[in-house]
């Protein structure tokens, strides 16, 4: 790549042009273009696959839509479960991630910040099946007293009302497991954008008499806002599509709409429903499951698109 950095000075007028269109540059630009196109093609291929194979599932026999009767109701109920579990996860994960990222980038001494950052990144390498088993075997049991306490003291709020899950497995536990899974990705991105705040802005804030928190509020947060939203959206994307952990923890079956956090059976998510039903005896249901996959695909796309649009608008306002 760096073959033509040692151009003789005699050819002074030529180098910029040559550099721009050197062989290495052309190869690299070609590769980058290829990578970009591959992603777009793969995405389009997934969409086409889901649309073609799933289209029959939009109007199949009503017995193939358990607890619903038609596709719209079935998909809507499943989508509710998906969004609900993701929202619960985000409630735990977002404040925790931002706090953790701030700690690593602005509060912790260097000797502590580096290992903490490593450990968080390692968390992202744990397979989701492991998180699922951990949620099912350990966290669900450990959460039983907490769930009992919530139900006893806050049971008048519909979120925590009866009936309590006997085994401890509930949307609350699933949300916690999902939160642990999305914390690494959200934290990593927040940490990066926090660390990129211009040093001058921070020092200016401090020089004006701001405390450290005020400096973070007035210098770091406005600067990092779009990056934080991007990190949160990536986390949300993972929470929406996560399969195995939710499947293990909830073991949910028929679509269900309830905001109760502590009950079992719980509402299944689109991804966990596909995982559980796809190998079933009734192969006719597969088209319906693929159609719900299409719904998840479109929904995730829309969520990301809207989020980006919001971020872009915010940035323009600030500029």
């Amino acid at each position, binding site marked *: 790549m760096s073959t033509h950095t040692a151009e003789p000075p005699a050819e002074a007028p030529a180098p910029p042009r040559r550099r721009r269109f050197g062989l290495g540059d052309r190869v690299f630009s070609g590769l980058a273009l290829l990578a970009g196109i591959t*992603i*777009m093609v*793969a*995405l389009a291929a*997934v969409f086409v696959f889901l649309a073609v194979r799933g289209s029959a599932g939009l109007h199949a026999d009503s017995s193939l839509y*358990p*607890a619903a009767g038609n596709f719209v109701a079935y998909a809507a109920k499943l989508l509710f479960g998906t969004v609900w579990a993701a929202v619960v996860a985000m409630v735990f994960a977002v404040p925790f991630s931002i706090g953790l990222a701030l700690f690593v980038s602005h509060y912790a001494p260097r000797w502590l910040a580096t290992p903490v950052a490593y450990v968080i990144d390692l968390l992202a390498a744990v397979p*989701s*099946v492991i998180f699922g088993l951990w949620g*099912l*075997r350990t966290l*669900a*049991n450990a959460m*039983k007293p907490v769930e009992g306490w919530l139900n006893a003291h806050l049971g008048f709020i519909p979120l925590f009302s009866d009936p309590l*899950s*006997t*085994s*401890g*497995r509930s949307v609350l536990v699933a949300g916690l497991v999902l939160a642990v899974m999305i914390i690494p990705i959200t934290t990593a991105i927040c940490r990066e954008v926090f660390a990129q705040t211009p040093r001058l802005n921070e020092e200016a804030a401090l020089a004006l008499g701001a405390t450290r928190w005020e400096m973070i509020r007035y210098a770091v947060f406005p600067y990092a806002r779009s990056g934080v939203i*991007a990190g949160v*959206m*990536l986390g949300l*994307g*993972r929470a*929406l*599509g*996560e*399969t*195995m952990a939710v499947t*293990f923890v909830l*073991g*949910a*079956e*028929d679509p269900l709409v309830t905001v109760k956090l502590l009950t*079992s*059976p719980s509402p*299944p998510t689109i*991804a966990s429903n*596909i*995982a*559980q*039903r*796809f*190998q*079933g*005896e*009734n*192969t006719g249901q597969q088209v319906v499951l693929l159609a719900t996959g299409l719904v*998840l695909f479109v929904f*995730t*796309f829309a969520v*990301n*698109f809207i*989020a*980006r*649009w919001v*971020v*872009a*608008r915010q940035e*323009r306002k600030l500029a």
Partner: protein
Amino acid sequence: MNTTSLRRAIVPGVAALALAASLAACGSSDDTVSASGDSSSTASTGGAASGLSGKVAAGGSSAQETAQESWRSGFGATNPDVTISYDAVGSGDGRANFISGAYAFAGSDSAMSEDELAQAKSKCGGDVIEVPAFISPIDVFYNLPGVKDLQLSPATVAGIFTGKITTWNDKAIAADNPSVKLPSTKITPVHRSDSSGTTDNFTDWLNKTAPKVWTWEHSSDWPTQVKGGESAEKTSGVTDTVSGTEGMIGYADDSGVHGLKGVGVAKIKVGDSYVAPSADGAAAGLAASKTVSGAPATVLAYDINRTTTDPSTYPVFMASYLIACPTYDDQATADIVKGFLTYAVSEQGQKAAAANAFSAPLPADISAKATQAISTIS
């Protein structure tokens, strides 16, 4: 103005979506990795080589997976040049792929329907061969410290699983267990959340033996109308859930309950006595059942006799089938399928499966009938 901001949003939006989609893909691929059959068990032991060689693809029932592994390794010992793969994709897909020709033979937890038999017949060019090869007792097991030897009648089990019986000291349970002191613990039934042959056979038994309480036909999905209780993914999910919390009761393959700590296995009322699940009982149960009438001679599909009153039988069991064509285009494939299936239903093959998968060996006469049916493969 608006269009620029939209354009600015599109590019990173697509990128983020792509990442999310790939993450989702990673997540969903987890469940297929373990399912792909591996046939590394064809290690040569230097035994009498049969001269067979070639590759055969098969798949279907995930309940048969362990048994298929033991058959592969047993068959591979004498046929080192044969590679047989078994994809545990589920019974439904197994039958569909067999009919489409992707699998040379299939494993299925339920016998083929008439439609499927007709489709398979036109694909194979003759009546299919369908033989029972894997019998597994289904245990009703519970987590109730201090209570051993629980006895349950079918109506009581149906009452528990429909949510009509809510505490362990309910009159119905007490009537089945006159000499046991039962606690007032809340009872929570656990069923399979995924589609499974275990559920199919369990609900069939409930429907046949307690039709007044359990009014639903057998089905591999837990009936939507049955409320209450909890659900869990796969056999391991049910066993984990039941063993994790006091007061829970569930049903699962005998192999899944074996060696599980902290749970008891209920004896089921058959006739006038209570019978513990056993391989022999399940095998006797199959022997006491009749084959489905009107089926071709090579189809050994059983209509399992759930209402038997013979105390030597245990009627809550699953019979899983092997399905093959009578003829294959390729002689080598025919020889391999014939040889493998013959081994699977043989005494040796059944013993190997029993040792690894805790299944019940086929009764001798059924094994002989199955061998007879398989021998027509050419």
